């Protein structure tokens, strides 16, 4: 009994820190989301307004736009990242010096801070002196001088490219791990049975990678939903509002326009979306495990 008391006592400091830094702010923001609180007018949260902030979100064009931008960003970046990561993993799974070397340098993009990636890409796509902008111009003279980040579609494309560049290595390693767990015999058996290389990939390897690919896609979705850093440093949400992701929009509502009640409500909507995806992810993991032990 004594030991139990001691162990709980030892946990108290950690609990207090979590309470102060996570639980309290979370609860506070949840309560705030049901109140009116314009920081430019009131120092303390104002009246309770029920679900008005949430109702407002359903019709407000800024949020609608950010929801649409985020959807496009998430769908394209997840698909491109997963396809690229799986393809790279298939190329890199063999043993060899070159393979090992490539795997090591593959780490580098992932080791970079997302905010810095945004800054570097903004420079690289500068039409005057950017190395990528100039390089593309040299290969395709028609594209020389294209204001890459000034066009809504191109800016979104570049945002997706930076994100794919950042995340593909990590996802490649996840796929490599998955590939390593596939018994080599299944591939050899298929080879003897008469399958072509493509058929082995699509008919034997990918079906066995289903679980890993699902996990990769869900994780990438959750990460992409939070996209903020590169938006700030690369496009600033522009041109116009064409790259304003949800996280970026919520930040603006809260800390540019100081509408804390509305910002809290939007943050909780984003959290809800992520929680739904996470719950689905956990359920999938559990069922995968069940299949693996069967």
């Amino acid at each position, binding site marked *: 009994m004594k030991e139990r008391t001691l162990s709980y006592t030892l946990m108290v400091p950690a609990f207090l820190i979590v309470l102060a830094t996570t639980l309290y702010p979370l609860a506070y923001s949840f309560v705030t989301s049901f109140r009116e609180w314009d920081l430019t007018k009131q120092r303390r949260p104002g009246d309770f307004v029920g679900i008005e902030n949430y109702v407002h979100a359903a019709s407000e064009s800024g949020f609608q736009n950010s929801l649409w931008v985020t959807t496009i960003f998430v769908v394209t970046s997840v698909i491109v990242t997963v396809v690229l990561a799986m393809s790279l993993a298939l190329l890199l799974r063999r043993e060899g010096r070159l393979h090992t070397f490539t795997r090591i340098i593959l780490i580098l993009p992932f080791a970079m801070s997302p905010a810095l990636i945004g800054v570097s890409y903004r420079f690289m796509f500068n039409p005057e002196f950017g190395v990528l902008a100039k390089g593309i111009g040299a290969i395709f003279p028609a594209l020389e001088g294209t204001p890459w980040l000034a066009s809504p579609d191109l800016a979104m494309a570049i945002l997706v490219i930076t994100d794919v560049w950042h995340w593909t290595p990590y996802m490649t390693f996840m796929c490599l791990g998955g590939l390593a767990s596939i018994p080599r*015999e299944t591939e*050899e058996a298929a080879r*003897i049975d008469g399958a072509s290389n493509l058929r082995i990939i699509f008919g034997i390897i990918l*079906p066995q990678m289903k679980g890993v690919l699902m996990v990769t896609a869900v994780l990438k979705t959750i990460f992409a939903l939070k996209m903020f850093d590169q938006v700030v440093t690369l496009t600033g949400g522009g041109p116009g509002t064409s790259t304003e992701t949800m996280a970026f929009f919520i930040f603006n509502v809260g800390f540019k326009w100081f509408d804390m009640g509305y910002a809290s409500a939007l943050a909780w909507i984003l959290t809800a979306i992520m929680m739904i995806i996470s719950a689905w992810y956990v359920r999938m993991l559990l069922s995968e495990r069940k299949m693996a032990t069967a």
Partner: protein
Amino acid sequence: MAEVRLVDIEKRYGSFVAVAKQSLTIENGEFLVLLGPSGCGKTTTMRMIAGLEEITAGDILIAGERVNDKPPKDRDIAMVFQNYGLYPHMTVGQNIEYPLKLRGVNKATRQQQVQDTAAKVELDALLGRRPSELSGGQRQRVALARAIVRTPKIFLMDEPLSNLDAKLRVTMRAELKHLHHELGVTTVYVTHDQMEAMTLASRVAVMREGRIVQLDTPRKIYAEPADLFVAGFIGSPSMNLVNGSVTAGRFRAEGIDVPVDLPDRDSVVLGIRPEELDIATDSSAPVAGKLYALELTGDSTLVTMRMGKTSVCARGPADFEAAINEPCYLTPKAGARFHLFDRNSGQRLDG
């Protein structure tokens, strides 16, 4: 059905020789077992025949045709893997059907052949299940069915029974033997289990360090091992091997004195199988020592005795009893065969 010829084949990984340069012909319809301890090159040899491993030098001919540069699928072979190699995302039926599907067999024929094959290996009731829902023995049957469904020229089996428990292994062994009899397809079978090799093979190739040290019928390999390695590897319990010398037509070592037909020489190893020794009561018996251990196996008792550093084992009657550390005597049975080897080269000395 086809003959397989390996001509001067060799496999090297850098400077490491996995399979030394050698030739081997596997006759049409033969059941050839590659037998040896792990790392002896038996699986590599089989994988070279399958086309899963490139050969460093030499030629492989299947039915007279050189297949060195042909991919596995064009060699008309089927292989059974130690870990079964089943496709986990397909049902049993789909697993068996897959090789036919890849070869463009039409659906009706495919389904008929799957049914026939499944019936042959008693899987008909399990066609809708996934491999993960099957026992080890059932999985091995699926692997077999997938191999036999398209009647290839050659069967390659890489330790197919080693993941099964002892009892199931014996049953499956008999099934394999029956299947080979029924289909008559040339089979190459890799194992480290000498019992499997003895029971299944038409001929056994005993391998050691990348080389075939003896290629013969199981009977001949048991009766006349070519060297000390084969002598010690084949038979259970293994052959008694005693170091000594031959003088005046008698082999002598501590506690042993037996007549042999060999000119005088030193560094001789005498081999005699435990089943060819009888327990004697008479102290003038040619093998004398102290009883070391008694092990009842059911139908007989294994009697191990020691003479100095050497120990000798004999298979005695099941009801034999004696006290440990007491003097004990053995005598060769009538017609027992002594095997004589050179201790340094390991080679057989008598005919």
